[in-house]
């Protein structure tokens, strides 16, 4: 056996073990999800992904409404969260005086540590009534689109998207601020020396330099919003149907698993919930993969 001589070797072995453990855990997770969803996979096959009936009484299970709800609410959260989060990060890193920046960053990081059930409660008792009050305004401005049509009861995909955006903004701000601050001062000095204004320096030099890190923060935010359970189920309305309108209730994958797992009986029902877990895993990989391809292509364009 190879003798461990130096500290380097020991560190190598220890960190390698750590890395392999993570890999093994992920593999085990996928394996268990796959194995335990055998019954519905055999019974429904691929149609599980494209049918939208979810009936525990008759034993018909389809994942489409949950996939739809998960993608729509996470998409809405990113749509609202990215501009706000990145904007705030630019202000805190580049423009705000250090004292204010540090104080605000501390508060924002506290926000990231708030348990999701608290966000859910705030959603029910503060956000939903506020959205009900705002509804005529939203309808007046955007009511002509199918996205804001139909009756509005407060709990809806819109509410879930807004709550999620509040939950992911701290991640985007906190990480983006760090990576923007890490951009070498020479980059800024160079741009300023060439006659760029402060804003031109920030927008054309600093942000492109930090782009990969900012995208990283968005991936983390996306992962959190795809998997968020408690806060979403409290405000989404929990209706497994596909509606175009964001005013309508919906359902997400994580929410239905949390809601129904404890009382589910029978291999088919339990297996279907586990298969939903597998679907969420796959969905996360696909969305992350697509986003990475997108980043890669823009980075190449930027370099050439």
């Amino acid at each position, binding site marked *: 056996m190879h003798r461990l001589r130096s500290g380097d070797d020991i560190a190598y072995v220890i960190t390698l073990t750590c890395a392999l453990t993570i890999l093994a855990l992920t593999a085990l997770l996928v394996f*268990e*999800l796959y*194995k*335990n969803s055998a019954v519905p996979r055999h019974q429904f096959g691929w149609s599980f992904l494209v049918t939208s*009936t*979810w*009936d*525990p*009484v*008759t034993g018909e299970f389809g994942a489409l409404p949950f996939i739809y709800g998960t993608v729509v609410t996470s998409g809405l959260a990113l749509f609202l969260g990215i501009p706000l989060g990145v904007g705030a990060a630019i202000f805190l890193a580049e423009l705000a005086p250090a004292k204010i920046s540090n104080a605000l960053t501390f508060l924002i990081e506290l926000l990231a540590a708030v348990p999701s059930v608290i966000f859910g409660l705030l959603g*029910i*008792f503060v956000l*939903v*009534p506020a959205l*009900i009050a705002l509804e005529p305004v939203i309808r007046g401005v955007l009511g002509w689109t199918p996205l804001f049509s139909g*009756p509005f*009861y*407060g*709990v809806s995909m819109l509410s879930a998207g807004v709550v999620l955006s509040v939950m992911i903004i701290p991640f985007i701000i906190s990480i983006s601020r760090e990576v923007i601050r890490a951009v070498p001062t020479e980059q800024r000095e160079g741009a300023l020396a060439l006659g760029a204004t402060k804003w031109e320096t920030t927008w054309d030099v600093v942000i492109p330099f930090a782009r990969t890190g900012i995208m990283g923060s968005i991936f983390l935010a996306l992962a959190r919003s795809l998997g968020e359970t408690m806060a979403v*189920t*409290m405000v989404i*309305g*929990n*209706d*497994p149907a596909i509606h175009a309108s964001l005013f309508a*209730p919906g*359902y997400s994958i994580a*929410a239905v698993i*949390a*809601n*129904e*797992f*404890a*009382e*589910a*009986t029978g291999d088919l029902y*339990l297996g279907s919930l*586990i298969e939903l877990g597998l679907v969420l895993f796959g969905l996360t990989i696909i969305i992350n993969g697509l986003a990475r391809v997108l980043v890669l292509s823009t980075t190449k364009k930027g370099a050439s």
Partner: protein
Amino acid sequence: MTRRIFIVNAALATVLTMGVASAQEVLINAAGATFPYPMYSKWFDEYHKKTNAQINYASIGSGGGIAQVTAGTVDFGASDGPMTDEQIKAFQDKRGMAILHFPTVLGAVVPTYNIPGVAGSLNFTGEALAGIYLGKITKWNDPELTKANPGVKLPGSNIVVVHRSDGSGTTYIWTDYLSKISKEWETRVGKATSVKWPVGLGGKGNEGVSGSVQQTANSIGYVELIYAIQNKMTYGKVKNAAGDFIQASLAGVTAAAAGATMPDDFRVSITNAPGKTAYPISSFTWLLIPAKIADPAKKKAITGFLSWMLTDGQKMTAALSYAPLPNAVVTKEMKAIAKIQ
């Protein structure tokens, strides 16, 4: 995977309690329904003070309780709905013995609503509730509702329907009742802890449903009677099989239990039970005890607990807003304890 989780749970519970248990203590693990958990917790605590038996109860839900007792990872289970014939057969196949049902207390489910301008308790017929939850009665001034509520001015606004989103015994009792009232409900939706709702928004837990109802004008939902009593909510009267509108109360629930014919295996639904004072949306909750308990110390502790629960234990129910068992059921259960071998 579920079974593995259960084993870990059971092992954890054992490890956690080993520290405090003295040598003669009998440790018993149980798991199941969440609805009777406050009552069970009180009972197990009181029983532990009297005897050397310590019963650890994990309130993981009825489905989990049935799965765990079938897998043999707990000594007994608990459920808000009786086990189905298939579940009993699965238990028989796996464990080579029968499973016995013992009713412990009773629960009820009440309709709650929020209609601006309407105060006080509304009358609901079973047909009205089934129609609303099927999406066929869509306005508060529907004849089915106005007929039952003479003198009340019901608005012509749309009804917003709220139901439970999480699987629960409450939903089981509610859908069991609607299945008995409406043929269409029985064939289109059926009864279960989670169903495919024809209409409505889902709220998580009693608090989720009551929260949605309170915040949404012209809405209707259903919650456990205990939850409604403890939160001083207004709830509707429901027409029973005898034709009277009954405001749910602990006495009305016990009356429903007394009116039902009890089969020997205690698996009985008492929704829409006969009896003039019976509240129609009521149900037993059950302990699920294996018919053979190999360890004599455990057997003694479990049978001892059952007879204590049926006598002294029943006196503690009212303090926690649970409805006690009627005397006839207690007598019948006392005899059934002898079936445990």
